[in-house]
């Protein structure tokens, strides 16, 4: 077992100082953003009073096109305030997403108005059209070329390809220049601070920062610190532009620099931990550690993997790190350390599970070797760094709408029955899936001339060389994801009708329908009758059969055809993000006893409180249910486990959790998000969020300060913790 990294009090104090600042800044952000932030707890700094005036390309008042966006982004990077935390090893911060400062998006004539009616009918608020940033960069490109090399590359290919319209290259050139000017401003600011500083360490640190930034303006990074600073610059700019958030396989990215610096005697472990903590303070970009070589012959875990974990543990703020889990003993030391930190800290890394991700990817027709190279670099999603455009997590098909339209139709027919209900449900589901496929064709046609991936293109294999945005053939693999959601809501609704109406005949179809249509007003007993059936997740339940049937049909429908016009590959997924409240808000009552406006079920999970009767709730019961309904094509449908640490207080708690994670992997699970605090702690924090301002929880694939979340999002976490008490 790898020894824990020894970090001196001086370095711990510097890391703690960043933690304290983060908690303080978070309060300021909350005040500025109306009391809650439900998305990823990004590391941006709120600069009160900062404004930006974009130069719009025409009268539309919309900022679109590569050149216009690149030039405005360059200006923005020149105008945002400079920022250096006095105890950080790195410079820079980002000041909020660019679209908050500029009306960026599709120009009016490219907006998908033709889909508006269907989107409205089926509650499709995330159609994938205009989806941005859901691809992973290959940062080895940045490390190889450096900023000057990237600039040279853009200019060289512009000249070499000599396209009729240089809009693409002009925009990319402006982005690189903006990054370089941003770097230069921080170099100068660090020099300025160094001159004023009296503390010897800080003075030297500021000087070092200035030197590092200066070096990056002239060549690729050569040292560990320069590599971390390069990543900080990248993630500040990437996050600014449409909240990009992917870094990649962080341990392998940093390992060459670490090994060289240690060999040269210029880097200690505690310095490395401090630099990584500084990177995590800068932003919560998603990264992965662990995993295997493409040929599976060796684990990727290195000493750097442990340094990264240690940095996250000591900083103890929201961060988005995933440990890749696979079935070989070389996986276990890193997994075990990650679990130990979760038990100590309450939350920590998520666990990206190779079995489901890799086997699923091979079902897409890719070799296993490529599948092993995918990294978990988003809330739920995984991607091949630099060569895949997967657009996971940008669509939601709320299947409960398909169910409700089907129910209306079979009731209108005058002869309602389950077979017809199912047939009508499938018909509506097909319309919804086809709507997304049509939309993806539209996306393919318009997104590149409106909102190209101006930052990520620079760090992918192909866009600059081909002069093509990554969304339109810039990278080799396009496999567009479609997330179907509300699985348990629909499965439980089918099962409730089958049990109470068809089998037991406790209700007629009409009685059930009237109760649902009246939102169960004055019909609480019927609501409870429908709700209190063995639900999805309960062993041997009717709902389990329905969930499998729905999953199978959904997967088959998505895979049944490519997009109709451009023949793009479409892949099924099942991820709701934390948006189960938003998607339930306008959804009428459903026959599973859910009232109008109540949340839908989460991703591929059973609803809280699903275990009743002879069986008691347990993490394995839930894990088995989630593993059983994976869409199975390599995209993650996460399992959230919120485990009371009181239950694991005995020695062996870490082993128990490691087993749980491994078995979920073996069963075909794809992603596991884990929180481990006491029920009492979560209750208290929910009642009084300010009482625990630095309690970090994993909401879904991302982590956040619990106090930052809205009451509804906090409730999601609380419900999961208390699911055995429902």
């Amino acid at each position, binding site marked *: 077992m790898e020894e824990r990294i020894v970090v001196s009090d001086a370095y711990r104090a510097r890391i703690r100082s960043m933690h304290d600042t983060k908690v303080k800044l978070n309060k300021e952000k909350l005040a500025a953003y109306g009391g809650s932030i439900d998305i990823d707890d990004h590391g941006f700094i709120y600069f009160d009073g900062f404004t930006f005036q974009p130069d719009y390309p025409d009268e539309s008042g919309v900022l679109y096109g590569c050149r216009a966006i690149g030039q405005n982004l360059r200006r923005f990077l020149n105008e945002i305030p400079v920022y250096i935390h006095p105890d950080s090893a790195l410079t820079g911060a980002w000041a909020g997403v660019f679209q908050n400062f500029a009306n960026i998006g599709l120009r009016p004539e490219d907006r998908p108005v033709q889909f508006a009616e269907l989107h409205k009918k089926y509650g499709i608020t995330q159609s994938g059209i205009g989806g941005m940033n859901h691809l992973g960069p290959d940062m080895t490109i940045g490390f190889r070329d450096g900023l000057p090399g990237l600039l040279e590359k853009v200019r060289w290919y512009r000249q070499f390809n000599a396209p009729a319209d240089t809009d693409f290259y002009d925009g990319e050139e402006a982005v690189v220049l903006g990054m370089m000017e941003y770097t230069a401003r921080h170099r100068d600011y660090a020099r300025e601070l160094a001159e004023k500083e009296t503390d010897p360490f800080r003075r030297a640190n500021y000087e070092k920062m200035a030197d590092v930034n200066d070096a990056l303006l002239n060549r690729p990074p050569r040292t560990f610190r320069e590599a971390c600073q390069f990543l900080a610059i990248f993630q500040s700019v990437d996050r600014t532009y449409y909240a990009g958030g992917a870094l990649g396989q962080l341990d392998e990215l940093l390992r060459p620099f670490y090994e060289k610096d240690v060999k040269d005697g210029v880097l200690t472990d505690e310095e490395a931990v401090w630099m990584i903590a500084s990177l995590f303070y800068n932003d919560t970009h998603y990264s992965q550690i662990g995993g295997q070589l493409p040929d599976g012959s060796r684990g990727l875990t290195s000493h750097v993997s442990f340094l990264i974990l240690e940095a996250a543990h000591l900083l103890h703020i929201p961060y988005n790190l995933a440990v890749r889990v696979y079935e070989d003993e070389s996986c276990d030391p890193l997994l075990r350390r990650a679990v130990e930190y979760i038990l100590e800290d309450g939350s920590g890394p998520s666990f990206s599970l190779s079995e489901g991700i890799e086997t699923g990817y091979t079902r897409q027709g890719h070799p296993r070797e490529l599948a092993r190279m995918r990294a978990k670099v988003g809330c739920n999603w995984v991607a091949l760094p630099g060569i895949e455009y997967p657009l996971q997590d940008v669509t939601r098909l709320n299947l409960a709408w398909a169910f409700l339209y089907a129910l209306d139709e079979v009731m209108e027919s005058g002869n309602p029955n389950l077979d017809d209900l199912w047939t009508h449900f499938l018909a509506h589901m097909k319309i919804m899936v086809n709507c997304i496929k049509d939309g993806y064709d539209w996306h393919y046609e318009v997104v590149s001339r409106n909102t190209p991936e101006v930052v990520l293109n620079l760090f992918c294999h192909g866009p600059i060389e081909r002069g093509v945005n990554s969304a339109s053939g810039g990278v080799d693999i396009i496999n567009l994801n479609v997330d179907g959601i509300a699985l348990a809501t629909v499965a439980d609704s089918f099962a409730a009708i089958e049990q109470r109406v068809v089998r037991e005949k406790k209700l007629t179809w009409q009685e059930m329908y009237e109760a649902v249509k009246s939102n169960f007003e004055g019909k*609480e007993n019927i609501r409870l009758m429908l709700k209190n059936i063995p639900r999805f997740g309960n062993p041997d339940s009717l709902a389990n059969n329905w969930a499998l049937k729905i999953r199978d049909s959904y997967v088959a429908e998505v895979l049944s055809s490519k997009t109709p016009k451009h023949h793009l590959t479409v892949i099924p997924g099942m991820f709701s993000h934390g948006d189960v409240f938003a998607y339930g808000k306008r959804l009428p009552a459903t026959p599973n006893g859910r009232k109008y406006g109540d949340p839908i079920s989460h991703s591929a999970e059973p609803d809280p409180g699903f275990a009743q009767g002879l069986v008691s709730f347990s993490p394995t019961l839930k894990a088995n249910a989630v593993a059983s309904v994976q869409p199975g094509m390599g995209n993650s449908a996460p399992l959230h486990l919120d485990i009371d640490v009181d239950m694991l207080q005995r020695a062996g708690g870490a082993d128990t959790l490691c*087993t749980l994670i491994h078995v979920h992997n073996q069963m075909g699970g794809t992603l596991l998000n884990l929180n481990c605090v006491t029920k009492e702690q979560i209750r208290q924090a929910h009642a009084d969020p300010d009482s625990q301002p630095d309690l970090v929880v994993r909401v879904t694939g991302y982590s956040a300060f619990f106090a930052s979340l809205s009451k509804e999002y906090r409730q999601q976490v609380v419900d999961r913790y208390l699911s055995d008490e429902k």
Partner: protein
Amino acid sequence: MAAEGIIFNIQSFSVQDGPGIRTTVFFKGCNLRCAWCHNPESWKFEPQIQFYPEKCIGCGNCFSVCPNGVHVAAEEHILRRENCTACGRCADECYAGALALTGRRMTAEELFRRIQVDQPYYQKSGGGVTFSGGECMMQPDFLAELLHLCREAGIQTAVDTAGHCPWEKLERMLSDADLFLYDLKAYSPALHKKLTGVENGQILSNFEKLLEYGARVIVRIPCIPGANWEEIPQLADYLAGKPVELVELLAYHKLGEGKRKALDMAIESFTVPSKADMQEMTDLFESKGIPVRCSGV
């Protein structure tokens, strides 16, 4: 073989009833009446109705379906339990979950299929299945078949028993059970009888025979101030030098009180021991060279 038994709960991911990740199966029916019992629904061998008045929405379904007039609307909803045959109709109609039928008959085969689902967790963690209760030794045919099915499937098993049964019954389980979780509740026969309703001569005799046989045994001692607390040191003396794998000291908790209320049973409350008290007791066992672990505080 088609042994049938009655159980009242299946708890998967159980980490308190033996090593590793386990599924604990709670048998219904017990021949002891421990004053502190946290599973009072386990006492009777028949199904029982549990009533949680705080969940009642007053729909009246139970009144109309009960053939024996068990449910009575007085100032509050009360149950005439003496008339109840536990047919379960009221629970079936109680959609609010205020009434629940505890106890379900299953064949060993049915139950085995249910617990086999978690076999990968058992194998990876060194866990298995624990048969608890109630008193699982009171359904020996059912238990023996389950143990055998598990043995054949390669699932490790533990028998959680108070040992108050003829030795032959325990002996029958030895070939298939991997571990015994053996409860010792008091040292003197008099106190044991006072607290559980039976003396402990047979219990201690069976315990010693198990050890003689070479069975793997983990002793579990509930630690209850005001009940058996004063005799625990004597149990420590008794256990010193005996080849037990471990002694677990289980701090008393009050979680069973709600379930007693749901069964209209009298609630006898005891003092919850402090962490310091439990540590002191743990130290005592350690001082005698007994492998010991404390849990529940």
